[in-house]
Structures are given as structure tokens and as C-alpha cells.
């Protein structure tokens, strides 16, 4: 219990003094996950829509595989990306290991299946409603995907925010490929792990609290900005 209180105190101290290190790692957390989510959404949303409207032979298997990929253990992804980017690995020459870019690569791989799978599930339902109409109108596949992505945007937003949540709290992968280097690749979650390892639970809790609050703020702002739960039946 005293740890929790100490954590609360630590959190307030860090925030009110606008601790320089805190600002740095928080910003980096959001940059890494933010960019990863953007890339993952850029690939995942259209793919989910495409999967909803396309019939092909191995469709069921593809969908099952995609859903299974949602459960990729992040630390395994991290290990894989490390081996790829290591100097002894195929992409070593790019010198990307232990940089925020490597962290973005790992997080994008983790988040993309989540966004693709969730958007596919949401748009599948929408497609079953629009199916006859859009075929009757002789739309192309591209037009159908556009319609689904636009009309289904509320559900897609949820998919994106889910991906963001997964990413902002992720640690396994970015620890391995980022190295938690001070002033270079340290983010909120890896800093928390460091403090836990050192035994400083109060500080770790404080950082954790800040992480949660920031995630809530992001979610709230997104919902407010997109005016969900306000108009219409959607």
C-alpha cells in the first residue's frame, strides 16, 4: 500500500516539475507508437476491407491466420526483428538496431494484424448489409472498399485505438530491438521495467500511472475530436 501512495507522489512530482527525462521518454513513447499505428493502419485498414469484400479460395484460412497473428507474442516479434537488423543479420548494413526506427518496425509488425483483423470483422458486417446494393450499382472493388472504409469509420477508429493501446503498453519487443538506451531509445514502458529491475517500485508505479493517464487522454481526445456518441445512431 505504501508503494502505491509513494507511486502517486512520485508521479505528481515528475509531472509538476515537468521533469526533463519524463518529457523526453513520454514524447518518445508516443512518437514510436504513434508512427507505428499510422503505418499499421495505412496497411491494415484497406487490407481488412479488401478481405471483407473479396472471395478467394483460401479465404477462411487467411482469416483464421490473421486472427491468430493478433496473438503474436511481442517479445518473439522483437527477437525476430533483432535477428533481422543485427549486424550479423540480413539487414545489418542499414544500421537500424538500437534506434527508434527499429522499435517502430517491431511495433508495426505487432499492431498491423490487430488493426487488420478488427477492421475486417467490423467491415464484414457492414458488407453483408451493403452487398446487394453495391453489386447492383456495378461498383468496382476499389469503390466498395472506399465505401466500407468511410461508412465504417467509427468501428475502424476503435480498431486503431485498440492497436494504439497495445503499442503504448508494449515492452518486450522494443526492449530487445531498442536496447532501452538512455536518451536514445528509452520509453515509458522500458523505463518502468528498468526501475522495477532496480527495485524502485515507487518510481516505476509513478511512471506507470503517467502512462495510463496519457493513454486515457489520447483516447478521450480522439473520441471528442471525432464526435462519436453524439449524432445519429452510430
Amino acid at each position, binding site marked *: 500500500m505504501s508503494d502505491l501512495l509513494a507511486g502517486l507522489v512520485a508521479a505528481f512530482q515528475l509531472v509538476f516539475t515537468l521533469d526533463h527525462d519524463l518529457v523526453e521518454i513520454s514524447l518518445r513513447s508516443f512518437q514510436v507508437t504513434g508512427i507505428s499505428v499510422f503505418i499499421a493502419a495505412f496497411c491494415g485498414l484497406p487490407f481488412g476491407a479488401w478481405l471483407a469484400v473479396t472471395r478467394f479460395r483460401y479465404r477462411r484460412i487467411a482469416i483464421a491466420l490473421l486472427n491468430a497473428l493478433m496473438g503474436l507474442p511481442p517479445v518473439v516479434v522483437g527477437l525476430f526483428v533483432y535477428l533481422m537488423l543485427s549486424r550479423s543479420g540480413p539487414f545489418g548494413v542499414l544500421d537500424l538496431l538500437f534506434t527508434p526506427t527499429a522499435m517502430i518496425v517491431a511495433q508495426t509488425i505487432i499492431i498491423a494484424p490487430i488493426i487488420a483483423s478488427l477492421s475486417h470483422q467490423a467491415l464484414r458486417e457492414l458488407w453483408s448489409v451493403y452487398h446487394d*446494393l453495391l453489386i447492383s450499382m456495378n461498383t468496382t472493388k476499389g469503390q466498395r472498399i472506399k465505401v466500407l472504409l468511410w461508412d*465504417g469509420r467509427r468501428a475502424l477508429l476503435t480498431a486503431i485505438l485498440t492497436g494504439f493501446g497495445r503499442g503504448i503498453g508494449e515492452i518486450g519487443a522494443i526492449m530487445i530491438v531498442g536496447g532501452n538506451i538512455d536518451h536514445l531509445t528509452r520509453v515509458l514502458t522500458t523505463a518502468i521495467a528498468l526501475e522495477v529491475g532496480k527495485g524502485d517500485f515507487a518510481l516505476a508505479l509513478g511512471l506507470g500511472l503517467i502512462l495510463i493517464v496519457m493513454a486515457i487522454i489520447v483516447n478521450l481526445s480522439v473520441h471528442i475530436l471525432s464526435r462519436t456518441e453524439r449524432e445519429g445512431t*452510430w
Partner: protein
Amino acid sequence: MVKTIFPLVLEDACVSKKGRLLAGPLTLKLEGFGITILLGPNGSGKTTLLKLMHGLEKPKSGVARWAIPNSIANMKQSFVFQSPIVMRRTVLENMVYPLIIRKVPRKAAFLRAEEWIENVGLRQSIHKDATVLSGGEKQKLAVGRGLITDPDILFLDEPSANLDGASTQAIERLILLAGEKGTSIVMATHDFGQARRLAKDILFMYRGKIHERSPASTFFDTPKTNEALSFIKGDILL
């Protein structure tokens, strides 16, 4: 010289689903003049025939074709479903959509859409989300959306089956107007009062086949088949 999509020709076309024959063999030549009504009891295959003609169903055997290639013919038809399908956007955005996908310039498209919203009597709902409309209003939207592209043929599948008198009247008015402007109409209904009011031509369907084809002027007074007679009398046809 722009070729017309007509005639639509069906030759021994059969539609099956999961091995079960839904309708057919169907043989028909549609020249495209006036309002043709598909009349018949529920389950007689009216919806299937409509979808076959429009291309939403493909024949398992036999032929269904227009006079010109499908790629062109498909853009000149519209279909109104029994249960209106509206997109989850505003009434205006719904109405304008068929024009947008035909690459009509945005300004002109939206103007035309507003015109048609006026035509179908939905002016007061123009910026409302289409999903909150009543059944009758949705169907008016669907009919307007079907006609906004000035199609050569409009298919309607029992459009007023679930609507009240006022809505039915409004829909029928739109259909008649379209017919007068030269749009070919093919409509399924089991309401023979409606058939009486609108039809120029009757295709009487029974057990998945076109049982009788007659001009409306003679069908109601002197039907050619017993089944048609029973139906008109109001008997249940098995």
C-alpha cells in the same frame, strides 16, 4: 448511333441454389416498353427472376443476355430492393452516390441530388442520417437513387410490400412518372390491386416459371390460365 440495351433475352435460364432449383426454365424476350409487372403468389420466383434479369443472379444453365455487352448494360439499370438498403450516411450523400461513381462532377452531382430529394419528397430530411428514416422514406430514397442516373430500366422488388397507403401512393406516383419519361419498368408484386393500377404488361409467375404473359388490358378480365384465374379470384395457389 447509340444501341439500346434491349431486348433482354432469356433462354431456358435456370437458377439454382445448393442444388435446389429456384426458378426456371425461363424463356422471355423483354422489349422494354412501359411497365411490366411480375405478378404471382409468394415463392413463385418473382424475386429470383428479377435478380436474374438484373444480373444479381447468374443462370446455372441457359442464357440471360442484353443486346449490348454487360459492361455497358450494367450501368444503365437500377434495382430497388424489397427491404430498402440505405448507406450509413446522410440522405443527400446516399442520393448523390450513384452519380459520384459515374464520375459526374461534384457540383453538378450534388445539385441533381438535391433536385431528386425534392422530387421524392424528402426535402426536410436532406441532411439527416438515412438510417433514421422510416420505411416509407427509405424506399422513396431508394427509388430516387435508382432513377437519378436516368437508367434505361428500373427493377423493383415488391417496393411497397411493407408500406402504408400514403407511402405506397407516393412510390407508385414516382414509378408512373418514370414510366412516362421513357424508363422501362419491371416490378414484382403480389398485390394485384397495385398490378392493376400500374401494369401495361403482366408476367404471371407460378412455381418458378412464367406461367402466363398477357397485356394488362386482357389479363384481369380474361386470364388465359386456370392458375391466373384462381389467383385473381383470391384463392390460395399451391
